[in-house]
């Protein structure tokens, strides 16, 4: 597919995601629905990764760049957060550590459980 078609296909998937988001009875972001639609299209081989790789490659390689303008708008919201900078910093720091250890421990347990089950199956 040429690059314009690739852009059109991805935009169409995004619009489809946003349309579904509008009719859903509960709030669910359209962009995430679009991500799930594209994943299903790839799984069912309706779209092959090679067909859209010029545009998706560009998007994925520069992902961080696309949310810079959203970050620049901090100019507007800084007054709201300026008295809470330390607590916000602590929330970010501590929750990251907690999430890291909880996730690690959870996966560790699942892996150990899977191995055990695998062994008993083999033994039987």
């Amino acid at each position, binding site marked *: 597919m040429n690059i314009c078609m690739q852009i059109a296909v991805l935009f169409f998937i*995004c619009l489809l*995601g946003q349309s579904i988001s509008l009719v859903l009875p509960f709030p669910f972001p359209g962009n995430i629905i679009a991500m799930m639609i*594209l994943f299903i299209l790839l799984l069912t081989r309706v779209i092959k990764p090679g067909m859209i790789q010029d545009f998706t490659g560009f998007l*994925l390689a520069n*992902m961080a760049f696309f949310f810079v303008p959203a970050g620049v708008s*901090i100019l507007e919201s800084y007054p*709201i957060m300026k008295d809470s900078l330390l607590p916000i910093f602590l929330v970010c720091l501590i929750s990251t550590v907690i999430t*890291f250890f*909880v996730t690690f421990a959870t996966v560790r347990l*699942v892996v150990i459980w899977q191995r055990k089950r695998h062994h008993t199956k083999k033994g039987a």
Partner: protein
Amino acid sequence: MREIIESPLFSIAITILGYEIGKWLNKKTNNPLLNPILFDICFVILIMKLLGISLETYNIGGSVINMLLAPATAALAVLMYNQLDALKKNMLPVLIGTSVGAISAMTSIFLMCKLFGLEENITLSLLPKSVTTPIAIEISKQLGGIVPITVAAAVFTGIMGMIICPIFIKLFRMKESVSVGIALGTCSHVSGTSEAVKIGELEGAMAGLSIGFAGIFTVIFSLFFL
């Protein structure tokens, strides 16, 4: 002159310029604190202040860049699809790990915000900050949070994870690849994944998958905070 400075092309050009300088500095100094996104945000704000460009004017060009967040988020599906084999082999650890991780992130954020007595709208902005920024932005909008605060917190969380997690991994001799990868991707999204890739291939694949799944689970769990 004013017309040139206030052209949407000018906003886009300075945003790209700042990003490239930020990337170059980050590579040169190899310092995770010198993050290209944070640098670019400061760079753009500095130029706006110097030339007297209002946020409203900047956003005419900014919204064009912002628009590409939608297909960029959708493109995360390609990232997940590329790790399909690793996903098939580790379906249960990925699903259980990222869902429990997402719950623990949101619960710990919520409780700490209450503890520190943070305002409601700041709490809502911080709730989704553990997942990849484009998804966090969407959740924040949905919850009624303040998007720029979410962006800052999500980028900052990524940097924290990048600096702290490798220290824990060494200190506690965390070796099991699947657990390390999923934990890194779930707690500090893309930045955590870049660390995981440095440790090993399986770690990187697991972390990459966790970005998408932790994102989806956080979207689902955030429905309970509405």
